[in-house]
């Protein structure tokens, strides 16, 4: 690992100021992804600003919604008894990700900031537009079994690796960002599609820091499911994952929420399928039709062809589990 200087920030403002002052500085929280990338030479910051001591460790449980500070660990969220009851989808998604050791280290803010695990991004000997803009995409005609089927571009077909973010995309989440001033953006506008600038994973500006998230209260109750399909039964990234939440009244769907992981450069919300489900009976037949709607526009790149078949089946299964049928 190339050496760097290390500073602990004590306030959000000083952290942001420090980052703006340095040309090549980065925030570090849990470090589970950044340290890995630094060891491989993918990230080479001159300075790390440690933000783990910032006062962003609160979980605030209100009737109107849930606030989680950016420095709360993945374990703290996943294991919180109140969150398990009131936001079970979030808890399930977090438990499906990484390992207990990593969840103890990783933070909510860091989880949102993690980079793709595309092997071409990680391998500095390979072309990658995300790591080195203009060098090309190695995955396009290479090993792309794990790669995107939605929203990809000629520049990049990488996927976002987070499970937590798939649940946050399905719920009404707001991201709270501190720069020179505070701003709040809908979670769905936080991550980006690759387009011609795959080096940008999200819409954070230089000198901005995620301070927390807010999730609106919902009425899904226990009618939620997070289905993660991977090469091993645990501790592996998703080939395809589905976050499903249903509000059901008299066997009819009042509201549906669907998002997928492992299929796009950002957590992929399936709004058309949600609209389709509204007012329909909660039956496997409805879910099959919704899955067809959801797969509109999907495109494979060769080795990930199987995802075109796996994804709709996963959607039907997740919705059925959520509906408890």
């Amino acid at each position, binding site marked *: 690992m190339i050496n760097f200087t290390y500073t602990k920030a004590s306030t959000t403002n000083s952290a942001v100021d420090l980052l703006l002052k340095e040309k090549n500085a980065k925030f570090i929280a849990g470090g589970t992804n950044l340290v890995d990338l630094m060891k491989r030479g993918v990230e080479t910051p*001159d300075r790390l600003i440690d933000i783990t001591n910032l006062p962003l460790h609160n979980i605030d449980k209100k009737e109107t919604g849930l606030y989680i500070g950016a420095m709360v660990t993945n374990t703290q969220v996943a294991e919180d008894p109140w969150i398990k009851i009131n936001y079970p989808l979030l808890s399930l998604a977090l438990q499906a990700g*990484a390992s207990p050791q990593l969840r103890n280290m990783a933070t909510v803010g860091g989880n949102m900031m993690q980079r793709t695990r595309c*092997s071409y991004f990680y391998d500095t000997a390979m072309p990658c537009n995300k790591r080195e803009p203009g060098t090309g995409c190695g995955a396009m005609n290479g090993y792309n079994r*794990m790669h995107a089927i939605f929203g990809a571009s000629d520049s990049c077909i990488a996927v976002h690796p987070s499970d937590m973010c798939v649940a946050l995309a399905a719920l009404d989440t707001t991201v709270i960002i501190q720069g020179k001033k505070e701003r709040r953006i809908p979670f769905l506008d936080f991550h980006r599609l690759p387009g011609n600038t795959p080096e940008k994973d999200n819409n954070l500006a230089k000198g901005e820091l995620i301070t927390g998230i807010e999730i609106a209260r919902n009425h899904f109750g226990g009618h939620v499911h997070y289905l993660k399909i991977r090469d*091993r039964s645990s501790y592996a990234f998703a080939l395809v994952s589905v976050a499903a939440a249903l509000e059901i009244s008299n066997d009819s769907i009042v509201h549906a929420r669907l998002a997928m992981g492992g299929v796009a450069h950002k957590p992929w919300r399936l709004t058309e399928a949600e609209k389709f489900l509204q007012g329909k009976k909660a039956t496997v037949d409805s879910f099959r039709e919704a899955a067809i709607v959801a797969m509109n526009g999907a495109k494979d790149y060769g080795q990930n062809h199987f995802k075109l078949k796996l994804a709709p089946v996963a959607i039907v299964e997740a919705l059925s589990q959520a509906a408890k049928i």
Partner: protein
Amino acid sequence: MLINGSAFSADVLQFGPVCIGTIFSVNFLLFYPTMSMDQPKPHAPDGGCSRRSFIQQSSAVIALVTTPSIITKAADHDERIAELFEKMPLSLEINGVRHELSVEPRVTLLDLLREQLQLTGTKKGCDYGQCGACTVHVNGERILSCLTLAVKTEGKKITTIEGLATGDKLHPMQQAFVKHDGLQCGYCTPGQIMSGIACIREGHANTRQDIQEYMSGNICRCGAYPNIISAIEEVQKAGGIV
């Protein structure tokens, strides 16, 4: 950053990459097929950005005014001065013993334990957070020491496999691993034991399925999993003295 006089002592100058990660090709297990043997090794520590620029600048000035033999000495000198600026004081407790140390920010907790403190019980498997061999406890919670910068553990209490036994008496989890033959080659065992103890402490060892899921971050290439689970199950059922 503070200047710490002890940076000149021999024991703090022996950092180096210990690339035994390839013994276990656990990279296969989490990454895609292309990320295997032909993947480039991480950059060898080459002195770091600030040291590099410091040496370049100062040695260039000296080179203008001195003879070649003196340049070598000057560069040596620069190297040592640069280290003074790049190391940070670090105070932490490991297995009940207080340590006042001096480390470069890039040193991981794993390398600190193994290379600087000779606590080689904690193993370097993959060095990328994929195998769990380096699992230790920080303030009672299991974490991966290979992805933890040592400077981030300032003021914390670390427990490693060396800190479990009391004199000659093994920790109940160590005894259970022996009894149930929870290992073959033994390389993943320290990580498995540290993780197993935490698994019970967290309340995730009530069923074999639970143990399997919550031990999934510890890979055993010999496949001793059924016996590892039995060992943890037994300690949990015995009242979980952890």
